[in-house]
């Protein structure tokens, strides 16, 4: 057990260090883009608030927190492991040649890859936001189990996309495009469901994608009670994990990976 844990921790460390291979300035270019993406939404929310629009129960402060936290935790709210990108360049084959489980390696490399961003972008942003009058503290500690359920569900969704890629004979770009569209539209990471017209938000909340981003973000800003979102998050985990495991098991025989 200790040996296994040591191996997993070493993988996390290697994955985190690997993110720094291109140099810290290269990482900051990506962080700068995240901030650029954030600004239009911030101005839009302010514009609506200044015009006295009905913000669906949100205050401007809560809206800004929702948007900023969504940017800070983007990687956790939309889990992207090597399961979807490593078919393309042949890396997924390596996972079968190491004395660790495939899922264990995918999980640890993903978590390790998050660490530099959490330290160099998310944490500094959480410290700076209060200076601009935006709270970066969750309304309740129940946000953390909610986030854990979201991450768990994110891995299941990620595995299902991986199976889709295998089934589509390594159409990685297709899956990437499709996934981005689905997440942008259905997860609530960009626009809170309460601000959507025609009652669309009420339907999207029930879908698994709503449990990925909208659920933890709504709990973070206090727009949803944990007891409202936990049952759905748990339900989707119970439904999608066996499905993902079964689909991945079946897909392995079809897996083709090459590159260099």
């Amino acid at each position, binding site marked *: 057990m200790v040996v296994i844990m040591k191996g997993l921790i070493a993988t996390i460390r290697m994955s985190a260090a690997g993110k720094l291979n291109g140099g810290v300035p290269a990482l900051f270019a990506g962080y700068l883009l995240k901030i650029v993406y954030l600004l239009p939404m911030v101005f*839009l929310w302010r514009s609506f608030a200044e015009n006295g629009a009905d913000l669906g129960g949100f205050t401007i402060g809560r809206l800004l927190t929702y948007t900023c936290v969504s940017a800070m935790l983007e990687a956790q709210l939309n889990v992207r492991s090597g399961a979807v990108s490593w078919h393309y360049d042949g890396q997924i084959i390596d996972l079968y040649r190491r004395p660790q489980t495939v899922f264990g390696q995918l999980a640890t490399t993903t978590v390790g890859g998050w660490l530099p961003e959490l330290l160099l972008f998310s944490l500094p942003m959480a410290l700076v936001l209060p200076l601009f009058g935006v709270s970066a503290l969750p309304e309740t500690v129940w946000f953390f189990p909610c986030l854990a359920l979201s991450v768990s569900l994110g891995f299941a969704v990620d595995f299902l996309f991986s199976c889709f890629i295998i089934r589509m004979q390594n159409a990685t770009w297709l899956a990437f495009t*499709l996934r981005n569209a689905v997440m942008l*539209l259905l997860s609530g990471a960009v*626009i809170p469901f309460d601000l959507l017209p025609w009652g*669309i938000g009420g339907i999207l909340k029930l879908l698994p994608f709503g449990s990925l981003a909208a659920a933890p973000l709504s709990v973070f800003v206090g727009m949803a009670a944990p007891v409202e979102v936990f049952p759905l998050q748990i339900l989707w985990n119970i439904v999608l994990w066996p499905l993902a495991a079964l689909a991945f098991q079946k897909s392995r025989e079809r897996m083709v990976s090459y590159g260099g």
Partner: protein
Amino acid sequence: MGDKVMYEISLRRFLGLYALYARMDLDFLVRDARLSLMAIAADGLSNAASVSGVFLLSQRFGGIGGMSRWDVLFMLGYVTCVTGLYQLFFSGNNTGHISRRIGRGQVDHMLVQPLPLPVQLATEGFIPFTGCQNLLFGIGIIVWALRGAGHSVGAAFAAGTAGYLFVSLAIIIGLSYLFSSLAFKRQVAFEEIASTVVDDLTGMLSNYPLSAMPPPVQWTLITVVPAGLLGWFPACALLGQAPLGLSALYPLAVAVVIWALAALAFKKGLKYYVKYGSNRYNAGGHRR
């Protein structure tokens, strides 16, 4: 030599190349129709998703920043048409994302072709069968918006829209080639610079109606990062008034400046590339 050959390329031959690439695109489509149709659908969905956020907000709030919901819809249709034209004429063979070709050492392959480089770049990207969905979608949105707003469309309006679309397309291509010139010297580092500039930065920001932004942000987004010239500015100008007191021809002036800079940078980069070549492949043929 290259200039001489280019001089001999007739319009008929030029159009013939478009026909050739159209035929190849059709072959690609029918070779695996299921995969191709799924890719087309995914691409259409991706584009719909990228404009849907602003669309839904404008529906919910009855417009954004002084623009009515129909104005916002028209702007989103315009942006989708720009993306669609870019996809239709410059998606094949990465001619729009030219930093990928440069960064992967593939300009070598182009230099040995019996066609001038500009002719190849102008024609190779044409994919009328697998790349037309966004343009059609955008035209549909524009028609919907104009009908909804009760705008009458005359020849002048149609010509103005076509002219602005051409200029917006020129701005994207110019930006792509300007920044891609960096890849001639730093191939690994700048292989994806075109997608960062075109898709991630200007493309993403072009979806926002800048009327809701403060003036410094508006100015930034029509000068330093000219995303506003790919949607907001042309839409405002076509619907009545060019914003910020600027001339309606301002986007054309910006396009000319960007193209002049791009031509200069690309020529200089190509000169360097021709002299030193690509460092992306080792002697065994593997990419570094």
